[in-house]
């Protein structure tokens, strides 16, 4: 037997973020320098040709608000304005819902501030027939797909018009009509399901694509690996998105392994195509999604996309981030704010101005408030009306078996 040199092991490492409350955040380790020169491989290329991008960053919008480089999707001004509109709508909705939670009108809420581009750009780049398996922070997809805001609010109010009959916590939307799957409270579970969905579509010869989203923290779950493995083995037409917003409640991305490799790099090990994209750059997210969708749709298999972004607000209404990260961390985030960046781009193109921006925000705030007034008229969790009580015994099985019938009777309803 060989004798290894005896040294004192230094214990194991527990990763720490660059700063804690009171400290000065430093994101330089993330390697987020302007990368407009990242080349754009053919969407039908072998996965290996994309792997260099896992350690780079696809960016289109530069610091001057110009669209540059091979990934520029060259969208029309109309499309860009639509993107801005949808992002602002999402933001207006989020802000109102937070207030409502603070007022006790809804029991729980999750904002996506700073991450609006990820859902909106992807939602716009995908085909309406494509299937979505989102996590809870992609509410923008609903707006991109044109869901009625009142319906969304009714769900969050758990009222009589909630299409989920009050059974789910707010923000756990389902919208079958919009090909939007059910959001689970359990992290990551829908990721491998999305691959199964995609396989069924492919088996029927459909040309639709399935996309799913998880957070950086969720990549640690076994289901992440299940999805990657299935996608790799069966070459399903699926887009596996990782939204790296630097935080998972109080744990920074290093606790999910983010200091050892990028999340996009996870895909390399499975031979997936891998893209790493500036998640606060509407055009970059759009382009990456479009690339992956084209790849999947033409039978060239799955893509993993890491969108690098920052969770600018609390994790949820149950969270207080000032206890674990510097208050100004969002300001220090090198990739800016997705709304501001798209706005600046449109202004630079001469297709927008600050006045229209202000007016749009005002109009959206009004729309949101009006929607809320309407939604509230269908009830609130606190004051009702709710869906009928017997509904709690329904939909457990297709038909109610004897034991549930008895339990309903036992409750006297």
């Amino acid at each position, binding site marked *: 037997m060989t004798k290894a040199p005896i040294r004192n092991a230094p214990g194991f490492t527990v990763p720490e973020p660059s700063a804690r409350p009171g400290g000065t955040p430093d994101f330089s380790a993330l390697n987020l320098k302007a990368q407009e020169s990242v080349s754009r491989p053919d969407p039908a290329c072998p996965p290996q040709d994309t792997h260099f991008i896992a350690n780079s960053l696809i960016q289109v919008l530069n610091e001057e608000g110009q669209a540059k480089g091979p990934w520029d999707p060259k969208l029309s001004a109309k499309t860009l304005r639509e993107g801005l509109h949808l992002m602002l709508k999402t933001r207006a909705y989020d802000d109102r819902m937070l207030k409502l939670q603070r007022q006790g009108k809804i029991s729980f809420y999750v904002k996506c501030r700073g991450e609006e581009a990820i859902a909106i750009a992807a939602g716009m780049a995908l085909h309406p027939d494509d*299937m979505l398996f989102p996590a809870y922070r992609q509410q923008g997809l609903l707006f991109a797909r044109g869901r009625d805001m009142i319906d969304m609010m009714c769900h969050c109010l758990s009222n009589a018009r909630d*299409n*989920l*009959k009050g*059974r*789910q916590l707010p923000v*756990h939307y*389902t*919208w*079958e009509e919009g090909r939007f*799957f*059910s959001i*689970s*409270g*359990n992290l990551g*579970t*829908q*990721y*491998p*399901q*999305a*691959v*199964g*969905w*995609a*396989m*069924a*579509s*492919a*088996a*029927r010869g459909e040309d639709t694509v399935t996309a799913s989203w998880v957070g950086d923290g969720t990549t640690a779950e*076994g*289901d992440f*690996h*299940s*999805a990657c*493995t*299935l996608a790799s*083995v069966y070459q399903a037409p699926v887009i596996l998105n990782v939204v790296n917003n630097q935080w998972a409640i109080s744990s920074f991305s290093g606790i999910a392994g983010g200091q050892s490799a990028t999340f996009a790099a996870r895909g390399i090990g499975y031979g997936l195509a891998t893209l790493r994209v500036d998640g606060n750059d509407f055009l970059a997210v759009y382009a990456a999604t479009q690339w992956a969708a084209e790849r999947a749709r033409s039978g060239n298999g799955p893509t993993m996309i890491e969108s690098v972004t920052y969770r600018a607000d609390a994790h949820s209404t149950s969270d207080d981030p000032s206890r674990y990260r510097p208050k100004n961390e969002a300001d220090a985030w090198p990739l800016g704010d997705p709304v501001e960046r798209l706005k600046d781009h449109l202004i630079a193109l001469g297709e927008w101005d600050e006045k229209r921006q202000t007016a749009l925000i005002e109009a959206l705030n009004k729309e949101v408030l009006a929607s809320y007034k309407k939604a509230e008229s269908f009830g609130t969790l606190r004051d009702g009306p709710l869906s009928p009580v017997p509904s709690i015994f329904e*939909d*457990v*099985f*297709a038909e109610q*078996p*004897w*034991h549930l019938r008895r339990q309903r009777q036992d409750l006297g309803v």
Partner: protein
Amino acid sequence: MSTTARMTMIQAINSAHDVLMERDDRVCSFGEDAGYFGGVFGCTQGLQEKYGKTRVFDTPINEAAIIAMAIGMAANGMRPIAEIQFADYIFPGFDQVVSELTRLRYRTAGQYTAPLVLRTPCGGGIYGGQTHSMSPEAFFTHIPGLTILMPSNPYDAKGLLIAASESDDPVLIFEPKRLYNGPFDGDPHKPALGWSSHDQGLVPTGHYTVPIGKADIVRAGAALTVVAYGTMVHVALESARLAGIDAEIIDLRTLIPYDMETIAKSVNKTGRCVVLHEAPRTSGFGAELIAQIQEECFYALEAPVKRVTGWDTPYPHAHEWQYFPGQERVTRAMTETLEA
């Protein structure tokens, strides 16, 4: 089609797949070694060749992935039948069952559903040691929204599998592997029997169903009621025969939703009851049955309901027959219940 054939339980399960896949191209089938090879027990043999690789295929060794994939496919209009190679290995996928499969209809208020079948061989008696012998049904009976079946013979195995695949709910089928090739009455010293001479080994070659939720009274009797399922049905029959006890023996077949009507009717008649299962005793499915029986039949009961079960230990390899709830223990429980 009214032809019948002699089949083992494996052949009957295979035939059910064949019938289903022939009739409905939404039905697909997969699992570890279940594609090309046709499964380590052969339940899906020949199907890939017949129906092609996108309908019958091998999966990676990841039970969570298998179930999740099945959920996604089922939600997207397919009717998957997935095999979990051994019931002992279903637990990596437990979360997908508890948190996802069985809640999808409920949490989406019916917008999405996942009508699929999970099949898995369970139970002991084959010297499989602690990781090829488990009877984990009780864990699943506590999950709202899951239909759970366990056939005890080829006829039921085929008829229940067809019914399961045609059901709009997710169904989990436990297949007692000790019965795959023949009935087993609990006596390991007898020569192994095949299904060829057994009534229930005669199976229609075509389509038929065995109703979900209906127990089968496999022996009518007046002295006491025995509630059993899977392998224990055969152990109960032989034990009663040997002891000359006029037991009414119920083969549950469906665990959830269980046929309480049949059980209660029998217990109200006999006044005595014994519940059997291979799984460990504490919080086994027998506990549920007994809790319900004592509630519904309290005034008819003349003796406490006894349970004969596996012990509250992992399934030991060498002492298989000291663990397995065999004829001696079943007979003793029946006798004690009659004398109580």
